[in-house]
């Protein structure tokens, strides 16, 4: 009896193996008769669409695309970027007819690139990386601009002159944010310092909250974050302290501590890109948009923010948008006091994208590699 079942089993397995090997592969973008199929957009998300953070902002843009252009979208949440799981997800989305793929985490990059080479008919838009291809572009926003503005708010608010920063991974994007924030802080409060704690996670409510608690214990009275949960803001609220959020406006979740947050507004960019695919004019062009495009912005200041902050923020925001000022304008010193950016010059995009040093005023270090 058992032997028979076993034989049947092996036969089934061999059969499935044959199926995988010599069956015809599905052709994305066509309906089998060679006709162009409608555009269908797949999203690969690092977090969950209701994380009130990074992925939430992307999911809002997905809904915006659906609403504006009437195209069908699919998404998959909580796809890890510390292994190759996104490959299976991307294959599955393409298998379900997607011909445009958005992937929203840095760690997906290599795998997205691999998929881009394997599926030349599919368009890939990868967030925050640098590897590109004929059919793969990278897009991101100059989040350092609103971070600088949020630093102004924090610098004016702090009484202990100690500000905590809960940070995810020691990569250029995060380091750039910490530097921009610190420059903002010290533009209004040269005595304040920003202490950094690395969590080595993008999304982990408990770890991030604990990191914030450790900073509060050291006397920090404003907590900023490069994390995708509201954990640090909650910790500040519980201690009666103040917080700068990230990704989206969370004033309704943590009304006690939230002052403002640098936020994403992906909708218009996503819609524009998908429209280009529909029109057949899409090209692989990397994009790094700033406040002038509205892709990044600062959330409205709440009543927790110092009163005088609004005026200063508005002033600097206008300068950034007009192009009169950008964050990394000299003179800028590094942690040991050496001039890194001399007066009269500024960092190029390339230098910003590969930033691996902290500005003066940051307490903490970047793990050696």
């Amino acid at each position, binding site marked *: 009896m058992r032997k028979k079942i076993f034989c049947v089993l092996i036969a089934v397995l061999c059969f499935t193996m044959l199926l*995988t090997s010599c069956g015809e592969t599905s052709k994305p973008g066509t309906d089998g008769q060679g006709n162009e199929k409608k555009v269908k957009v797949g999203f690969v998300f690092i977090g969950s669409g209701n994380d009130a953070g990074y992925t939430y902002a992307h999911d809002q843009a997905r809904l915006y695309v659906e609403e504006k252009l009437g195209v069908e979208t699919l998404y998959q949440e909580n796809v890890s970027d510390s292994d190759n799981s996104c490959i299976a997800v991307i294959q599955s989305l393409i298998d379900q007819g997607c011909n445009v793929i958005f992937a929203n985490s840095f*760690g997906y990059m290599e795998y997205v690139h691999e998929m881009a080479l394997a599926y030349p008919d599919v368009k890939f838009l990868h967030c925050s990386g640098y590897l590109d291809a004929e059919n793969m572009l990278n897009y991101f926003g100059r989040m350092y601009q609103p971070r600088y503005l949020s630093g102004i708010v924090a610098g004016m608010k702090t009484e202990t002159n100690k500000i905590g920063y809960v940070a995810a991974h020691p990569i250029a994007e995060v380091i750039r944010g910490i530097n921009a924030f610190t420059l903002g802080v010290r533009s209004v409060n040269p005595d304040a310092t920003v202490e950094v704690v690395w969590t080595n996670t993008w999304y982990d409510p408990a770890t991030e909250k604990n990191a914030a608690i450790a900073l509060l214990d050291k006397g920090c009275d404003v907590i900023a974050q490069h994390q995708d949960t509201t954990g640090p803001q909650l910790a500040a609220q519980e201690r009666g302290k103040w917080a700068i959020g990230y990704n989206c406006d969370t004033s309704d979740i943590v009304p006690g501590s939230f002052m403002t947050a640098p936020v994403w507004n992906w909708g218009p960019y996503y819609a524009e890109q998908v429209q280009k695919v529909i029109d057949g004019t899409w090209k692989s062009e990397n994009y790094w948009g700033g406040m002038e495009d509205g892709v990044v912005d600062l959330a409205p200041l709440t009543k927790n923010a110092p009163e005088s902050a609004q005026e200063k923020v508005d002033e600097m925001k206008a300068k950034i948008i007009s192009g009169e000022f950008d964050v990394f304008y000299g003179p800028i010193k590094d942690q040991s006091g050496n001039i890194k950016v001399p007066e009269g010059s500024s960092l190029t995009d390339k230098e910003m994208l590969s930033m691996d040093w902290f500005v003066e005023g940051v307490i903490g270090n970047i793990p050696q590699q």
Partner: protein
Amino acid sequence: MQIINRPGTSIKQVITIRVIAIMAAAVVSSFLITLLGYNPLVVFSNMIKGALGSNIRIKATLLEMIPLTIASLGIIIAFKMKLWNIGGEGQILMGAFDASFIALKVDWIPSFLVLPVMFIVGFLAGGLWAFIPAFFKARFGANETIMTLMLNYIAIQWITYLQYGPWRDPKNMGFPKIPNFPKEALLPQIFGIHAGLIISLVLVVVITWFMKKTKKGFEIAVVGESVATAKYAGMDVFSVIITAMLISGGLCGITGVIQTSGVNKTLTFNVSSGYGNTAIITAWLSGLSAPWALLVSFLFAILLQGGSYIQSALQIPSSAADVLQGMILFCILGSEFFVRYKVRFTAKKPVSNGGAKAC
């Protein structure tokens, strides 16, 4: 109410119980799906479609099946001896680690030998990770469940340390990722799927033969039934325990090698992806039989792949899909209880019975 040991459950009874369990799982999860606002029939058919509906999906399902099968074989050997090896995760990780060491740090091995050496080293590393608790168990009677479990955490932290620290790829602009393996350390593709599939099928046959036909296999089963009997029969219990755990951990180690060189193409702390834990379930459901473990792993892979598919196809939140998988599992594992025990509704007085427990 009384719970009584079922002395010998007939095949017919087992099948009936299992069928009822699957039906119960369907009913309970239908309820949940309806609550979420979906049509249960659509969801179930999509799960099947998502696992077997196209080449890419079948491939994805087989990719889940391969590690589950091999890890299950490893777990089976330990469990057959009633040694509760909960350390599959750690053994997978250590196998993966040593293989990665060969792939990334050793460059004097001729390239055609790299993969074989990786497999041997991976087997030994997984085996060694199981040998530690086996030695303490055989020598001092230490609790192997706790020890294997704790060794999991050491392995995870070790790989995490490497990934965030000394092995981090400096080219990755600070992102914690270990460099990809060179070409000669990657498993070749056969019929569009990596060679791990063939290896897993071969291992099923080998382990079946080992457990059924060899002296060592027989000894393992005897030690599992009764150590006293084994000793009386003149068996060297110490060496049987050590051998079994070495093979058990070694098979998990091989799972790690396959997952790194066939799937991830590098080492990550995620490489075990819970296969070592899931294999405990699949091993148990297979009744500790190697061929059946293949079938159970295949079915389980359908559940995993189908569950992942419905997230994107029907836009069911990932947490809801996880709950769904959990409920199906709960019912099927719960049925195990009824295979082993019988519930009898009687008068208050418990009747005295050999293996009876009143409750």
